[in-house]
C-alpha cells in the first residue's frame, strides 16, 4: 500500500475492525433492549431508556472518562476483569467498547421504531397457530424488523467508525493499538507537512461512509420488499 503510509493504513484497518466488532457485539443487546423498551412495561423502564440515551447527550469525553473510571486497570471492575483476562484500557477492545457504547443509542432507536411498527395482530395469529412466544419472535417479529435492524447496524457502524472523543479519552491514541481513523487524522494534523496524509484519510473516511450508506440502502430495500410481502 504505497498510497497510504503504513501508519495511516493501520489506522484504517483498526477502525474497520473496531467498528465491525462494536456493531456485531452490541447488536443482540440492542435488539433485546429495543424490544424491552418497545413492548414491556416494567419498573425502571424510564431509567433504562435514559441510560441508553445518555452517551448521545453527554460530552463524549465524559463517557470516555467514566469508562476509564470503571474499567481502567486500577478501577474495581477493570481490575476484576483483568484478573479473568479481559482488558479494555489502552487496547483495541477498549476502542471497540467505547465506540459500541457511543453508537448504542442510535442502534436502539432505529430497531425500536421498527418493533413499534410491527402489527401485534400478526404475532397473535402466530400464537393461535401454535407458536410459543420465543418462536413467534424468531419466525414473525425478527424477520419483520429486519429492515430496522439493518438500518440500526449501519448507523451504529458509521458512528463507531467516526467515534473520537470517548475513544481517545478511554484508550488514548497509540499507533497500531488504539489509533483509529479519526485519531490518526487528529494526530497527523499535529504534524507539520502531513496535510497530504490527512487529505487521503479524509477521503477514505468519506468513501467508507458512502459505501456503508449505499449498502444499507440496498439491503434495506431488498429486505423491506420481502417483508412487505411483494
Amino acid at each position, binding site marked *: 500500500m504505497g498510497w497510504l503510509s503504513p501508519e495511516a493504513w493501520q489506522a484504517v484497518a483498526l477502525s474497520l475492525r473496531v467498528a465491525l466488532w462494536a456493531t456485531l457485539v452490541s447488536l443482540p443487546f440492542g435488539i433485546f433492549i429495543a424490544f424491552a423498551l418497545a413492548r414491556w412495561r416494567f419498573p425502571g423502564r424510564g431509567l433504562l431508556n435514559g441510560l441508553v440515551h445518555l452517551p448521545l447527550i453527554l460530552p463524549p469525553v465524559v463517557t470516555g472518562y467514566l469508562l476509564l473510571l470503571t474499567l481502567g486497570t486500577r478501577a474495581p471492575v477493570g481490575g476484576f476483569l483483568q484478573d479473568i483476562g479481559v482488558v479494555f484500557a489502552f487496547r483495541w477492545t477498549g476502542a471497540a467498547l467505547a465506540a459500541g457504547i457511543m453508537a448504542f443509542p442510535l442502534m436502539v432507536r432505529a430497531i425500536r421504531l421498527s418493533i413499534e411498527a410491527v*402489527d401485534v*395482530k*400478526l404475532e*397473535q*395469529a*402466530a*400464537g*393461535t*397457530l*401454535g*407458536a*410459543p*412466544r420465543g*418462536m*413467534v419472535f424468531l*419466525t*414473525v417479529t425478527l*424477520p*419483520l424488523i429486519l429492515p430496522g435492524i439493518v438500518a440500526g447496524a449501519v448507523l451504529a457502524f458509521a458512528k463507531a467508525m467516526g467515534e473520537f472523543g470517548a475513544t481517545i479519552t478511554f484508550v488514548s491514541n497509540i499507533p497500531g493499538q488504539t489509533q483509529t481513523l479519526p485519531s490518526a487524522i487528529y494526530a497527523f494534523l499535529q504534524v507539520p507537512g502531513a496535510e497530504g496524509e490527512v487529505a487521503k484519510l479524509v477521503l477514505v473516511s468519506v468513501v467508507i461512509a458512502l459505501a456503508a450508506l449505499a449498502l444499507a440502502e440496498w439491503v434495506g430495500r431488498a429486505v423491506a420488499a*420481502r*417483508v*412487505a*410481502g*411483494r
Partner: protein
Amino acid sequence: MSLEVALKHRLGDFRLEAEFAAPEGVTVLFGRSGSGKTSVVNAVAGLLRPEAGRVSVGARVLQDSSRGLWLPPHRRRLGYVFQEARLFPHLTVGQNLRFGRWFAPRGAVLPDEGRVIEMLGIGALLKRRPGQLSGGERQRVAIGRALLAGPELLLADEPLAALDEARKAEILPYFERLRDEAMVPVLYVTHSPAEVARLATTVVVMEDGRVRVAGPAAEVMSDPHVMPLGSAEAGAVLVARVVAHHADGLSELEAGGHALWVPRVAAAPGTELRLRIRAQDVMLALGRPEGISALNVLPCTVSEVRRGEGPGAMVQLQAPGGRILSRITGRSAEALGLVPGLRVHAVLKAVSVARDSVGGRGEAGHAKGAGDAAPRSPSGRG
C-alpha cells in the same frame, strides 16, 4: 365434541357475562357490534384472559379459573380466522399455510395438505406472497392456514366483514363445506342475519355482554323476540328439497309437502337447501288469496305475535317445513285478529327468496343434539 363456555370479564364499563354450550357444527355468535361477540371468541382463543370462567372443547379444558387453569393461545389447538387475513407478509402463501404444522405437537392428527389446498382452490397461489393476493384469496389462504394446523375448533371473527359482496359469496361456501363435511367444528362471529341463515347449526344471540338466547338455528331465527323488528334483514330459515327445474327459469322446491317456487337454484333435484325467508317479504291473508301474482302461498298457523313499540309487529308462523316470521303492521295484526292458533295463509313472492339466501342444507333445525344448547330459547319447540 361440544363447546362449553362460561365467562366473566370486565373491560372498563363493559361487563361480559356469557354462558352457552353448543354441539358440533357451526355455532354462530350473533349480535350487534359491541355486544361482546369478539371478546367471547378472543377468550376462547386465549387472546383475552377473562377474570373468571371455564372453557372446554370436547374433553379438553382450556380454562378453568376455579382450578387456576389457563392455557396460553399456542397450546389451545384452535384455528383462528380473523376479519383481516393476518397473513405473514414475509412468507409465501405455501409457507403461511404450513406455519401451524411447524409447531403441531407430535402425534397430532393433521388434515391432508393437498385436500385442503384443493378445497380452497389456492394451489396456484403457493409461491406468491400475501401482498400479491386479492382480498378473497387472502381470506381463503387464512382459512387454509388455520385448518392445516389441525385445530380442534375453528374460530372465525367476522371473516367476511372486510370483503365486498362478490368476495363474500366466494368465501361463504367454504364455511358451508366445513360444516357439511364435518371437517371441524366452527365458532363463527357475525352480525349478518344472512350469514346466520346460511351457516348456523346453533345460534347464540349476544346482547350487552350477555347471551340473550341460544339454541338450534331454526328455532332462534324464527323467534320473534330475537329478530329485531326494525331490521329489513330479519328472517327465518326453512329447509326445502329441490324437486325440479322448470323451463321458465324457476325451480320447484318442496317444504313439508308444499311446493315453493324460487328463481333457478344451482342444485340437483333431491338436494336439501336452506331458504332464508325475510320477515318483511311475508304477507298474511285469512282466506286463501285468489288471483294474485305471488306464486307461493303456504297454509300456516299463527304461533306467536309480538307487538313492538313502533307501528310494527312480528308474527311467528308454523309453516309446512318449519317456522317462519312475518313482519306486518300492528294495525293489520289487529284487523286480522291474529292470535296464536289462528290459521292463515302466508304469501311469499317467488323473487323474495333471494339467491344469496339459498344455502346448502346443513342441519338448521334438526341438528342431532342441537337441543342440548343452553340456555334454551324461550319459545323452544321442544
